[in-house]
């Protein structure tokens, strides 16, 4: 546009020349617009692509952990090895070694190393399962029972095709002899790959094939319950006061600034607060889901307050005026009319806040919810882990089998988050009123 005015100053041009100049610059300007749009689409494409890679990589490594290779072994329970009067002690591992030996008639079972190599196919948990079955029913001593137990991690990887048989033997975690043994069991039809129920029914373990999420799920449940019980009433109370009752003065301004800032304080700082105040000063137990829930409640409260205030604001003044008009007090208006109408919005905000709390990791690490605990907690004051901290522990573990376990745990966590958000969206769509 600028060149039109300058050209008029120098010499009068024909109309055609001006049109031509405009047309040319227009083409250039349109090209610029297309370039900008291209950049925009590229940026969105990048974000979507990254989300795609993230989900694909986690699903592709995680789905392996939803099945678990099992082996079926016939075990003769030798009364010599397991005398009734010494239960629950006994030579359970020897029983298993002998039992495995029957499938390898060529092996020299007097050689310790050979026996060890053969029984290494079984998970370390096999002897405990055998022990538990015998203790539960000592009359099976002297008979032969069928045991269906997980195989140990390297063989599990082999069966799932995660160990490449074509690589050099010294670069593989399973040597040729081990592969041969495994294939023999497979030919005998003893190998199966059922759904891995242990993933949710077992607690944590050092052995990937035995490790499960039960402890983490129960721990997260208690932590979230504590978080909800504390942050929901406190958040709603604070929001109602600030939105409906508080006089506009410095104190309420200060509280408001405070809440907005708390929402942006790094989560690890809340962990420091919990460690110093709850654990060191108040002497509450470490690693307890209750302390975790308390910390998460402080972090969730600003979210709930902000959501509740928005929901209260959305209730039209006519409702309040009508109620006031028929003689209700301010409290009766708020608790009898405004709050029930705002409830769907409040619940939506609360569920979204709880979903955030469920994925929060850093503060839980600082209060020690990353401990190695092999049983599920029986209450909110027992030591426990939570889902995200369990993911962190497994991600740190060197065994190969934990890579897929970690991804599977992430998928479980994401499933919970998606469910919670879906409930929130459902509530919003089903009950929210537009005025």
């Amino acid at each position, binding site marked *: 546009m600028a060149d039109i005015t300058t050209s008029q100053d120098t010499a009068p041009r024909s109309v055609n020349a001006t049109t031509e100049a405009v047309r040319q610059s227009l083409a250039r300007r349109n090209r610029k617009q297309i370039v900008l749009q291209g950049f*925009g689409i590229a940026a969105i494409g990048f974000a979507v692509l990254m989300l795609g890679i993230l989900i694909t990589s986690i699903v592709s490594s995680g789905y392996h952990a939803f099945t678990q290779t099992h082996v079926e072994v016939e075990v003769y329970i030798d009364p010599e090895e397991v005398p009734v009067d010494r239960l629950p002690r006994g030579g359970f591992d020897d029983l298993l070694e002998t039992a495995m030996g029957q499938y390898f008639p060529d092996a020299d079972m007097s050689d310790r190393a050979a026996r060890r190599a053969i029984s290494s196919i079984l998970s370390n948990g096999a002897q405990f399962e055998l022990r538990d079955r015998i203790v539960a029913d000592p009359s099976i001593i002297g008979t032969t029972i069928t045991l269906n137990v997980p195989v140990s991690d390297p063989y599990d990887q082999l069966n799932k095709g995660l160990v490449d048989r074509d690589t050099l033997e010294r670069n593989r975690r399973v040597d040729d002899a081990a592969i041969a043994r495994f294939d023999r069991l497979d030919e005998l039809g003893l190998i199966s790959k059922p759904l891995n129920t242990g993933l949710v029914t077992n607690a944590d373990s050092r052995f990937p094939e035995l490790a499960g999420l039960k402890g983490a799920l129960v721990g997260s449940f208690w932590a979230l319950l504590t978080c909800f019980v504390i942050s929901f009433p406190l958040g709603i109370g604070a929001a109602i006061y600030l939105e409906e009752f508080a006089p506009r003065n410095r104190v309420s301004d200060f509280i408001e600034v405070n809440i907005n800032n708390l929402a942006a304080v790094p989560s*690890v700082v809340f962990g420091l607060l919990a460690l110093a105040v709850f654990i060191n000063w108040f002497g509450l137990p470490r690693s307890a889901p209750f302390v975790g829930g308390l910390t998460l409640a402080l972090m969730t409260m600003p979210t709930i307050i902000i959501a509740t205030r928005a929901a209260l604001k959305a209730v039209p003044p006519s409702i309040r005026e009508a109620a006031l008009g028929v003689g209700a007090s301010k409290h009766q208006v708020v608790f009898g009319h405004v709050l029930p109408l705002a409830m769907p919005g409040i619940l939506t905000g609360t569920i979204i806040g709880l979903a955030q709390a469920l*994925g929060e990791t850093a503060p839980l690490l600082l209060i020690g919810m990353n401990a190695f605990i092999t049983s599920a907690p029986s209450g909110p004051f027992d030591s426990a882990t939570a889902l995200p901290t369990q993911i962190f522990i497994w991600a740190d573990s060197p065994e190969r089998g934990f890579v897929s376990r970690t991804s599977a745990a992430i998928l479980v966590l994401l499933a919970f988050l998606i469910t919670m958000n879906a409930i929130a969206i459902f509530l919003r769509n089903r009950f929210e009123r537009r005025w």
Partner: protein
Amino acid sequence: MTGFAFLILIIAAIAGYVLNRQAATAIRNGGARMHSLSFFHGMFALLVVAVPVLVLLLVWLVLQGAVIDRLTMAGLPEGTLEGLDTGAVQLILAEIKSISGGRVFGTPEEWKIAAAERHVWLHQAAAILMVITVLVLSAVLILFSRRTVAAGFRARHGVERIVSGLMIFCSLVAIFTTVGIIAALVFETAKFFSMVSISEFLFGLNWEPQIPIREDQIAAEGAFGAVPVFLGTIVIASVALLVAVPTGLLTAIYLNEFAPKRFRTVVKPILEILAGVPTVVYGFFAILVVAPALRSFGQSVGLDVAPNTALAAGGVMGIMLIPFISSFADDALSAVPQSLRDGALALGATRAETMLNVLFPAAIPGIVGGVLLAVSRAIGETMIVVMAAGLIARMTINPLDSVTAVTVQIVTLLIGDTAFDNPKTLAAFALGMVLFLVTLVINVFALRIVRKYREIYD
């Protein structure tokens, strides 16, 4: 016993409600004009009983454990704890507790068994005392509230006053939290600075908190110079912002001005998913996919990329921040008055020119606010860096190298050993203090910009 105490509380509150309501109804049926509805007389009793008893119970439960532990340790024979540091004392306490819980390992000394028995006895006594106290207090409060019922008694005002008080308390929790954070950080940091000088911490170039073995080595070696740690955070946060700011802004520009409506309805939820993924998942993504990919790419072009390069942690953090920045920028662009847009278009500007020359400059304050909040998120982000960044502090700004970050150090220093009397643990609080102050300043500044800007156009 705790459950029993809560049961008493609930029953007492309901009993108070029923008693007062019936009494009030009886007076009304007798023909008197009541100031308040019977319901409020009942509610008054309920609140008068429930609130003090609940407060008593909670305070009791919070303090009980610590008080009993202290009584147990005070009851030990003279001189058993002499010359022991806090760690050893806590170990003894833990052993006594596990004995009293029935888990005995080996053969503990006589005095430990005695202490364990005392511990069990104290717990039982405390539980019984708690129930008795709750019972007595409930009974007293029920009687008190029952005596208030009268035609002229303003029960509704009483109820409303109590409810208002409760709501004010709820609002104050936010302030208590801030005070708690500041108190915790200030106390522990002060302890730290009594061991290591402030200038050493803020300007020292050597960070080796795990090294000190003898106590006199700590200050002498200057192992608590936090500059390399701060530098690491700056490097990682810069990488993150280099990824997130351009991508986020372009995303917002396209979605705000050019995207067809249906495209918007598809892309917005996808961005929300990206924002909702927990950070521990991003951290695992960084070590599972991004870091190996960067490393093999580096090898193919002849660059030496560290296995836990700042590029991986920063890049993944950048991906996490994209939706954060784009939503702030989108809001800021939408807040620009329609008249500005119409004016530019009417003058013959293309939509790209309208966006770049009119809308974007007008939205700059809001966008800057959003970017600042993203900076504070990047500095305070923990899980991605804990999992994907290094542990050793190096003075380098090369993003291909492994660097550490403030949050990484806080977490690694506090995992495991947490005796509150050595500089290693306390250093984490000093770092936390710096983190809190820096993010606080950025947040206050950013929130002020965002708010001010909204007011201008509203």
